[in-house]
């Protein structure tokens, strides 16, 4: 996977994760272009599209678009599964997740994503073990905070 974007229906970027180092300027352009294309698509249209040398797999959950760019040989369906699994993880962690959860706890959302995907590859397919890792690190943080106080 090359990158993953979360953006709202209004075209606001909520999360971005790039798995290959890309210059800031290129990133901005790609995000802008892609958001335009995806937002212009009708609800009944296919979730996959070919874009430049990449395949784009996106899915809308409520007002949020989850959008992944994968290489040509990659499987679209498994990418769709990855998106869904990520949503499930967020849902479990935040408890029926909404856009605002991600806006205000965007770093948490990143931590979850980082436990699930790494370098663009699935790190662990088990929801349980991902959530356990997050919980453990959260506990660690609370512990340090208490030590601080």
């Amino acid at each position, binding site marked *: 996977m090359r990158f993953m974007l979360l953006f709202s229906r209004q075209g606001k*970027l*909520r*999360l*971005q*994760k*790039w*798995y290959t*180092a*890309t*210059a*800031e300027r290129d990133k*901005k352009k790609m995000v802008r272009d892609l958001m335009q294309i995806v937002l212009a698509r009708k609800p009944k249209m296919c979730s996959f599209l070919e874009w430049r040398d990449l395949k784009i797999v996106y899915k809308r959950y409520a007002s949020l678009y989850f959008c992944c760019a994968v290489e040509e*040989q990659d*499987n679209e*369906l*498994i990418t769709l*599964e990855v998106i869904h699994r990520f949503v499930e993880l967020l849902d479990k962690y935040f408890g029926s997740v909404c856009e605002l959860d991600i*806006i*205000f706890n*965007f*770093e948490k959302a*990143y*931590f979850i994503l*980082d*436990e699930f995907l*790494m*370098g663009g*590859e*699935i*790190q*662990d*397919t*088990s929801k349980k*073990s991902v959530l356990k*890792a997050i919980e*453990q*690190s959260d506990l*660690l*943080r609370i512990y*340090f*905070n208490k030590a*601080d*106080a």
Partner: protein
Amino acid sequence: MALKIVKGSIDRMFDKNLQDLVRGIRNHKEDEAKYISTCIDEIKQELKQDNIAVKANAVCKLTYLQMLGYDVSWAAFNIVEVMSSSKFTYKRIGYLAASQCFHESTDVIMLTTNQIRKDLSSPNQYDTGVALTGLSCFVTPDLARDLANDIMTLMSHTKPYIRKKAVLIMYKVFLKYPESLRPAFPRLKEKLEDPDPGVQSAAVNVICELARRNPKNYLSLAPLFFKLMTSSTNNWVLIKIIKLVSCFCVVKYLGLLAMSKILKTHPKSVQSHKDLILQCLDDKDESIRLRALDLLYGMVSKKNLMEIVKKLMLHVDKAEGTTYRDELLTKIIDICSQSNYQYITNFEWYISILVELTRLEGTRHGHLIASQMLDVAIRVKAIRIFAVAQMATLLDNAHLLTGNMQRNGICEVLYAAAWICGEFSEHLENPMQTLEAMLRPKVATLPGHIQAVYVQNAAKLFSTVLKSQEGSTEGTAAQETSQLMIDRLPLFVQSANLEVQERASCILQLVKYIQKLQQKEVEVAEEVSALFAGELNPVAPKAQKKVPVPEGLDLDAWINEPPSESESEDEQPKAIFAKEEPKHSRSRHTEVDEKELARRREARKQEQANNPFYIKASPSSQKVYQESPGVEHIPVVQIDLTVPLKVPGLPMSDQYLKLEEERRQKERADKKKKEKKKRKEKRSGRGRRHDSGPESEEDITPAHMVDIVTEEMPEMCLTLNHKVCDIQGNLQDGSQVVVSVIFENKCDSLLKSMEFNVLDSLNSKLQRPEGSGPHDGFTVPFQLPPGVSNEARLVFTVQSIVMPQKMKGTLTFIVKNEDSSIHEKLDFKLHFTCTSYLITTPCYSDAFAKLLESGDLKCSSVRLEEVNMPFHHLLARICFHHHFSVVERIDSCASMYSRSIQGHHVCLLVKTSGQTVSIDAKCDEPTLLGNVLDEIKQTFSQC
């Protein structure tokens, strides 16, 4: 210091945290840019403070702003500062910011190497995890090179959490620093079999990604992936593996394999993919090509045959000089000739295909093409004219085919060509030319059997040519033809091959004689052609059966009564023995003959079975033979017991097992024979036991040859005695039970055509001769004249021995009287008791004690009331009927032991007090034990 911390946390209270920032931005929709620039100013202030918490908060806000598209690269150094915090909370924020903001050209990355290394080796797995996650986003070639070793060590970390991250990041490292691949690969491969599914799936991911770039290098992992594919239940992993395997081209193979399975049930749906399958013939992988060929074989129809064969012929041309070409050739012929040429609509086309195939150099399948040519030419009359013309051309151009005579398999087709031209010479346009072609000196270099055919068919051609030439005016032409033969044949007479030599010299003499007659101007053509008159027709393999046996012909009667030595002997002692033993001596006399007869018949059958040209005997043909007159006079029974009937279908491995068994049995053979004879005399075995103590004790040794059950239908004229005479078993592939069945004819008529059949159960099956269906009966290989009995052995396979088995069966047979014959049926039950699976095995008392102590055995017990016999009789009875041996006996108490053929131990403790006997038993198989005890109980309830 304390003050500083307090001050820090007070400062923080006034700082905006991330939530405040986000809220602020949402509240300043109109002047967002302005609001953010003030925020950035604040952040810059915060970053100047010493307090790491403040810094981390600032960095966190920056990360958010970065996402909104603001440049934060100026804070790179502060991010590194936060990364190097010792506190996980801040470190995590630092690494997140770094992973979002850093890229290869960020110069501060150089400063992070040591920090990252320190974090990688941190005792806290989450520090390590965060570092790995961050690194995966901003790893540079330098970082990859410097940290490759550290990461490789982490691949064997005790925590799967770290292992899986390390494995995944290795992929990024390989991309940035390819040299690291070689040393890391063995460890990576090892991770494919990691006990943790997360690590395993990570390894699969990485290797799949690597392999996609260069599949060939990873082909050696194919078996491992195959194993994973069949064993893994993780769909995520499976998808990846299948993707990868498709790079190895294996999927194509599997697809073709699946198609061949589908073809059997849904031929239409496969046929629509014909073009796709034909494309597979171009694949560079031979196994795929062969698979595709197999598939084509099944999908041809009348419509597409020519098209498919045409495509195949193209491939034949392309595949010059490979074994694959030979495979193609055989497949083409297979495809065309299947089901009696069912799909061929045009035989001229087929003949030309065959002729085209003869142009292949170096093929091994000349004989195959030849046999096809012969077959088609003989069986398809309409094609003969065309075939003969083609064959004549072949003969004419024989030199093209036989570039390298002896080694070239293709010259076999000349065999067919010569025969077809000779046999159907009346269709030849220019027989003279063909005759000359067949007598060329070069022919002598062909293999012997082909030359022989050449010579023979030259003679046939000669007769045809004579016929045409004699009809015409020029009488000299015929003489010239004879002269040609006389000139050329001596070459063959000198042949080293006997067959060629013999035929050539024979024909040469014939032609010389013909020439003499010709010189006297006698017309000879008619008579010469009479030599080869009549047409050879194809004969179906079973045609022999249709030929009726002429009346009065008894195929089994002696043509010449064999010289009987006993006759002369009988002459003299007649006076002495005539009254006393006339019957005996005669019966012995016939018995010798019968034995001999049976032996010869056995031998003949054996020979016929091995002779591929012989039509195999079938039950129906046997009937014909049995009904032929005179058969009653030949007693066909009493195969000597020392010559055991062959048991068909016994697997080889079991044969070896049997050897040992046989060796032991040989010693007791005599005793057994005696015993058997005794049994035969009895009308029914029910209730009949060897009752007397001493005798039964004597018989214990061969005890695993004991009646299972004997049943009889009272109004029937036949008795059946079954007994198990040989049991072999092991746990792996069930047990073989050889049952010897004694057939005794009690009536005054001849019994014949006996067919023995049982209803197979799931557990027990009769082993039927090869090739017969699961419901076919076993044809009893003998007849029974009145008062005679004989034995047949049947082999059963028994899966489980812990339960007794009852198999229902029927015996059908024909009762033949003087004037009529009736078909009769006898129902019976074969009873395999559990006891019959026990083998008398001696056991020493200490071994016995150990066995009981082991605690592996289940316990059970039974009480027998009103047993009215001495204790030693009781023991002998158990020993005899149930195959136990006495381990130890103290007064009225005895321990006994036996073992099943599958190795179950059965131990008994028998106690008696008055008329009550209690048996405590132990066995490692409770079901078996229960059944054995039931059987013991039954034995004693019968007396």
